[in-house]
């Protein structure tokens, strides 16, 4: 290999845009159908528990917390993000998001509880 060739490559690399993404500064665009973290809409849930029945890993649990009020507990460590529960739910009470940043140092934090009272489907920060 001639040394001249190398110099050209080096110079080009100086001005070239990096091949890698600037994660986490730049957010990665997830594909349209991406199956990420689940969210739960308690106002839609009727407590049929079909989602629990079809979940291949047993990651989702629906608990009755009051009259026509249901709370969902999802173990993100067990969930394989197949979205079968979303397909199984006839009331569209479950939804996938594009959220992939789910790593936790504390395994207990992987268990998220969606409160039965919330009208927005926001998870309870303090379970």
């Amino acid at each position: 290999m001639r040394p001249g060739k190398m110099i050209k490559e080096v110079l080009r690399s100086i001005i070239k845009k990096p091949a890698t993404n600037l994660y986490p500064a730049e957010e990665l665009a997830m594909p349209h159908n991406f199956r990420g973290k689940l969210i739960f809409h308690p106002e839609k849930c009727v407590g049929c528990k079909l989602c629990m029945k079809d979940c291949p890993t047993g990651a989702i649990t629906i608990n009755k917390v009051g009259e026509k009020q249901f709370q969902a507990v999802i173990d993100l460590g067990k969930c394989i993000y197949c979205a079968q529960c979303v397909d199984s739910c006839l009331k569209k009470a479950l939804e996938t998001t594009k959220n992939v940043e789910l790593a936790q140092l504390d395994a207990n934090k992987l268990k998220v509880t969606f409160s039965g009272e919330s009208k927005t489907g926001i998870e309870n920060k303090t379970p």
Partner: protein
Amino acid sequence: MHKPEPDKFKIPVGPQHPALKEPEGFSVALKGEKIMGLEIRLGYNHRGIEKACEERTYIQDLYLIERVCGICSHSHSTCFVQAVEEIAAVEVPKRALYIRTLIGELERVHSHLLWLGVAGHEIGFDTLLMYAWRDREIVMDLLALITGNRVNYGMNTIGGVRRDISKEQAEEVLKGINILEERTKYYIEIATQETTIIKRLSGVGIISHEDALKLDAVGPTARASGVNRDVRYNDPYAAYGEITFNVITDTHNDVYGRTLVRVKELMESYQIIRQCLKKIPDGPILTKVPRKIPIGEATSRYEAPRGEDVHYVKSNGSEKPERVKIRAPTLANIQAVKHMLKDRFLADMPIVIAAIDPCFSCTDRSVSLENPGDRNKEIMTWHALRTYSIEWYKKQGIDFTELNNNLKNKLERR
């Protein structure tokens, strides 16, 4: 146990080593550099998937079956749902069948490109690895675009597919396929004209037509020995009955033939994908199937990238199957490896094993050379074995350094 012969080296390859991802055991009997015999032991990676399937419902099984293999996940899940659908006598909508075919072919493209890279790496042609894997990203992105994820697509469900494909997605797929077709033409050019590759791969890992039939080799391994067998053609499933394509065969009988079969199959896959997108009918993508599957049994066959995949399902009228049996293509091909390596050199081992595209080809592996006579031991990693193989062939005059540099320069000029 038979008595060790003092002039023979026995080399155990695997099964357990911290660097091994998939435990497989090979025991190679060597005389000098020549392989006198090879023993293969499977079963170290037994995960009990078949039994686990019996304890879960059909819907839960879908996701378990998909994880039999990370590369041919769609192959396994399609094979399984086909068997269940046959027992339940469901008519799957046409559109769903076309989508299954489309994903199946995209999966074949990504698997064959992956193989091309691995094969290049094993013979010391690393530029090919870089090229092939860069191009593979295009098809991985297409798979993510349609299914949502790069691996474990989760497309199949009993009675159809879970996601539809839009016009825009179809256009994106066509665009990607056009680029890949150009690239594949280039690989065919390299494979058929580059003397270094031809020399390195010709005559390595020979298995005759008769032996391939006798040992029941499947997929590209069999087709490279002139066995005209392809489930897509012989027993069409999904939408293959309405699509025209050629079954690629070759009569080289060696690793070179297997390379040609795979790169030419890529070209066929592009044609199949184009036809799928053109002929895909409008309509529903899913037929509702009751949770309880009636009593019955069925066997289903599927042409996975590595060869014929067979699933057997027996139902007892409940929501859970009574028995599920999976025969993956690598199991059918592994006996042929024994034959291919007989009387060949140790240096051929990496590429011959890699050439059947086994599910453990990309792993790092430990080899310990042992002389049973004097208990001298020499430990060799898969990496060292590969380096040894490349150096050995350099001595025979087959060297990829120049080719690697030439291609690199070509890339720089662009």
